[in-house]
């Protein structure tokens, strides 16, 4: 879906993106990961044709400079800064962009419903009256208007509270299941783990390496502590069973705390189930090991 060859973007003598080459396949969800200033947003803005650059960027086999309109028809974009015309109402904005993207006007109700916004309840509200979560949902609805095969998202949940983040990630997972290609930036590991198939790690504008989200977590030294709640009489048996399978498990009041790698959170649950130990509930917390680095 996207092919990037030798992409370089300079601001004066500063290389915001330096000789980046990568690709995103059809239906794939690829995350650009990196700290602030790594060049993630610059790459997306180049792919959207918003910045001048050297190198080649193709979307669906078309060079974005030679076929700027045709390539942008294939892209739905959710920006980091949600800047819309504040004095317009939500429905006015949706209809304006549906005409701009030559989408059928019936799509407006469909996509609003898809992102959990109601034309009757939210449609009359002016953009400035919408919460950050609603704006983000509206931005996704706008991106979906013409049913594009590719979604480009800049910092998925930067404006959202925890509850809204979960809802938004669920929306994106649904888009992925429908076969849409996702290309997004994030500096949050939980977002990447939830959606991405592959991660391109950027540092100082250069591609450092590519990996799976789990591999990224491992390289970062992400450790999870699994809290397993069991009947009190089975706690000792559970500690023994987990220790036998190589897990570091300790009793913690009415629960067990088990240290697991980020990509093995379900394994202790399976071990306990196979030993006929009834798991009542579980929870986990994540933390980075001291010295964990890329």
């Amino acid at each position: 879906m996207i092919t990037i060859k030798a992409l370089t973007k300079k601001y004066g003598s500063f290389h915001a993106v330096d000789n980046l080459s990568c690709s995103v396949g059809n239906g794939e969800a690829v995350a650009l990961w990196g700290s602030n200033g790594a060049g993630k947003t610059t790459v997306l803005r180049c792919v959207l044709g918003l910045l001048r650059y050297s190198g080649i960027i193709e979307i669906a086999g078309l060079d974005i400079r030679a076929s700027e309109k045709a390539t942008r028809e294939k892209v739905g974009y959710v920006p980091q800064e949600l800047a819309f015309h504040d004095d317009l109402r939500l429905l006015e904005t949706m209809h304006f962009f549906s005409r701009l993207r030559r989408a059928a006007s019936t799509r407006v109700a469909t996509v609003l419903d898809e992102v959990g916004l109601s034309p009757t309840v939210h449609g009359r509200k002016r953009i400035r009256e919408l919460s950050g979560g609603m704006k983000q949902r509206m931005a996704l609805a706008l991106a979906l208007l013409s049913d594009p095969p590719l979604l480009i998202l800049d910092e998925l949940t930067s404006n959202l509270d925890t509850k809204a983040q979960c809802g938004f990630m669920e929306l994106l997972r649904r888009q992925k299941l429908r076969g849409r290609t996702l290309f997004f930036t994030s500096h949050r590991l939980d977002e990447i783990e939830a959606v991405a198939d592959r991660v391109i790690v950027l540092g100082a504008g250069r591609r450092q390496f590519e990996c799976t989200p789990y591999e990224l977590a491992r390289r970062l030294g992400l450790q999870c502590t699994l809290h397993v709640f069991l009947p009190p009489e089975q706690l000792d048996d559970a500690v023994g069973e987990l220790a036998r399978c190589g897990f570091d498990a300790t009793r913690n009041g009415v629960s067990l705390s088990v240290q697991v790698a980020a990509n093995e959170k379900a394994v202790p649950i399976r071990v306990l189930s196979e030993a006929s130990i009834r798991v009542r509930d579980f929870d986990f917390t994540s933390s980075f090991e001291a010295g964990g680095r890329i």
Partner: protein
Amino acid sequence: MTTLSSCVPAAVTSHCRLARFTSKLSVGTLFLFARKEMRDSLRNRWFILYTIAFSILALALAFLSLAGVGMDGFAGFGRTAASLINLVILIIPLMALTAGATSLAAERERGTLSYLLAQPISKLELLLGKYIGLAVALTASISLGFGLSAAIMAVRGGSADVNSFLWLVAISLVLALGMLSVGFLISSLTRKASVSLGVAIFTWLGLVFLGDLGLMGSALMMKLQVTELFHLSLLNPLQVFKMAALASISASLDVLGPAGIYATQTYGSALHALFAAVLIGWIILPLTLAFGVFSWRGAS
């Protein structure tokens, strides 16, 4: 000597260029942006204020002109047209420059320009759509002022020099479109709406006051010949507008002194066409430059 074979590739190339250029334009997208810009203008209180001010002053000038010629106001249109010249020179360039100057810069500052340019549209559609929308809003606003003025004169019995009045309306609209183009050029060069507005106001000041003073000063200091003086004055669109309006009212530019006499004697009946061409040039050239700058800079 140009042969047929050398002509054909050149013709094909220019046809391809034209095709590529027109493929960048969708009438639907132009109309969409134009309509949005017109609606935004109706909500813009500065635009409304300028319209009201221009209408009231045009109306007042019409009354005053007619008062000076008694009840049967012969030559009412001509007198009113003459008094409207200074009003047009003051208000219309300010209105058009500020409207154009905030158009792109405000969108850029809000961040909406990036989002618009990420849609399947070309920069030409966005720029032209905005320009057409503002041009229609300006035309409506100016027509309202002139229309009220004409209505009063028609009711009060002014009858002569209708043509000069219509010519004044026409060149005022052309001047407005030219100043709108200059406003777009300013807007394409600046990042912030406040800076753009400031530059627009300085440009207006420069054209209205400094242009006149500069011309007078240059003529005195450099002992300019009438030829040079006339051609220098063609550089200022407001001067061109003033000369075009006067030429229409008094049939010659003798009232402007030696430079005016030179212009009348040299260009004769082609004077109107010359002024119209210069004013149209002020529409095309800055707008083309604005498009060039906007294409180069995009949303940044």
